[in-house]
């Protein structure tokens, strides 16, 4: 099916506007089509987990939403507004840097390798965005950063640089740093994959508390099937750049319909 730009609405309106919508999104690296006409809606407050084999495009989905990657076709909407595009004379055109920056402010992301700023303390990492981008005073930014560091159990380490923190501690600071920007959508890309097994729970318990406390919309990529089952509203199984199967955790994990899903799940469960 050939899509025309006029197939995409300028804005999502009505009762059930999703917090995030991927509409027919395609991403290529040279010849390689990584995502092929992806359609995915995430409702406000929903926790959606993406699972799937390595190379199936899971990270790419999050990176496109964080605007770390451009897309080749389709439109991504955030909170009803187009992210990758903007309206100009009644049509959708490629988003300008300023438009990207405006919509991006609703999204936060945590990375597999934390990516904390090594030349700043834990507190400094959490104050940087609020001061530079949101224009908060130093006092206000510090107050907010301390509350968040406290929430992730890192208030005591506020004055430490990342090189003095363990992986689990760094990832908790990274979560606090992202939350300090008050995003509506949080993205977690394999945030426990680089951690030693005994500290994984430090991080998963923080994410669990986010599900309980905040009305955050979350998209998470993980290989921890047990954790995904426990906290997700929905799980999407990715295969070769497409959603092969999706559903509530119980249904998808316990009675998958698709052969590939079954194979993947049994391989992962065997490995654990």
């Amino acid at each position, binding site marked *: 099916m050939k899509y025309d730009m006029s197939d995409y609405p300028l804005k999502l309106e009505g009762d059930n506007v999703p917090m995030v919508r991927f509409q027919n999104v395609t991403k290529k690296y040279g010849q390689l089509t990584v995502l092929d006409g992806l359609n995915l809606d995430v409702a406000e407050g929903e926790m959606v987990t993406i699972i799937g084999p390595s190379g199936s495009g899971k990270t790419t989905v999050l990176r496109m939403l*964080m*605007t*770390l990657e451009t897309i080749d076709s389709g439109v991504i909407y955030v909170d009803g507004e187009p992210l990758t595009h903007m309206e100009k004379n009644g049509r959708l055109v490629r988003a300008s840097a300023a438009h990207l*920056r405006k919509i*991006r*402010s609703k*999204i*936060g*992301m945590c*990375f597999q*390798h934390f*990516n*904390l*700023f*090594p*030349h*700043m*303390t834990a507190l400094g990492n959490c104050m*940087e*965005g609020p001061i*530079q*981008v949101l224009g908060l005073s130093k006092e206000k930014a510090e107050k907010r950063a301390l509350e968040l560091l406290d929430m992730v159990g890192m208030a005591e380490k506020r004055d430490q*640089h*990342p*090189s*003095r923190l363990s992986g689990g501690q760094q990832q908790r600071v*990274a979560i606090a*740093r*992202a939350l*300090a*920007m008050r995003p509506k959508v949080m993205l977690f890309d394999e945030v426990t994959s680089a951690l030693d097994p005994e500290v994984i729970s430090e991080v998963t318990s923080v994410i669990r508390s986010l599900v309980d406390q905040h009305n955050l919309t979350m998209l998470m990529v993980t290989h921890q099937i047990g954790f995904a089952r426990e906290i997700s509203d929905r799980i999407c199984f990715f295969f070769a750049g497409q959603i092969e199967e999706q559903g509530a955790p119980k249904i998808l994990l316990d009675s998958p319909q698709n052969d590939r899903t079954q194979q993947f799940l049994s391989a992962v469960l065997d490995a654990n």
Partner: protein
Amino acid sequence: MLDWKLDFTWEILPRLIAAAGNTLVAAGGGYLVAVVLGLVFALAQRTPSRTLTFIVRELVEFVRSTPLLLQIFFIYYVGPQFGLRLSPWAAGLIAIGLHYAAYLSEVYRGGIENVPKGQWEAARAINLSTVQTYRRIIIPQALPPALAGMGNYLVGILKDTPMLSVIGVAELMHTANSIGADNFRYLEPYTIVGLIFLAISLPTAWLIRRFDKALRRKMGLTR
């Protein structure tokens, strides 16, 4: 036996020490130009504009592959034909600053490229602007590893200041030459000049190493 004349030494020492001041000004001034201009060159090569990148890269290549002495002569003697009439000092500082800016821009570029990609991505994830990302995240991390290279070029620029004598900047070498020519004695002035250079560059190199260590510690880049 060396024929070293002590009274002559005392006689010329004040002049040479005064000239050392000029050498320091030339090195410091030239370095200041180079540090700033070098950063401009490095950043210009990272803008999306291909034309700008191309022009700056070619300029840097050109400066790096021609002798400093030629550049000094060119700016001072050929400049006026393009309406650029400069004093020896101004021409000298521009020439030496431009020359070292080309080298420093490569040092900066290396430092910037060494900052992991994840740092750019984290900066974007908290929505910093490009300028904020450079100023707050990238340059502070690119600087410490670049510091050793920057220090080497500071000592290098100091050692190259004698070239400014050819257009009449009264730095150490120029002064030693004229003392020698006036008195038909070269042993004392040249020896003293060598010692003065040593006395400047050794502590400078030492200070740079200290500064480098302190900076890394302050930024938490070492455990």
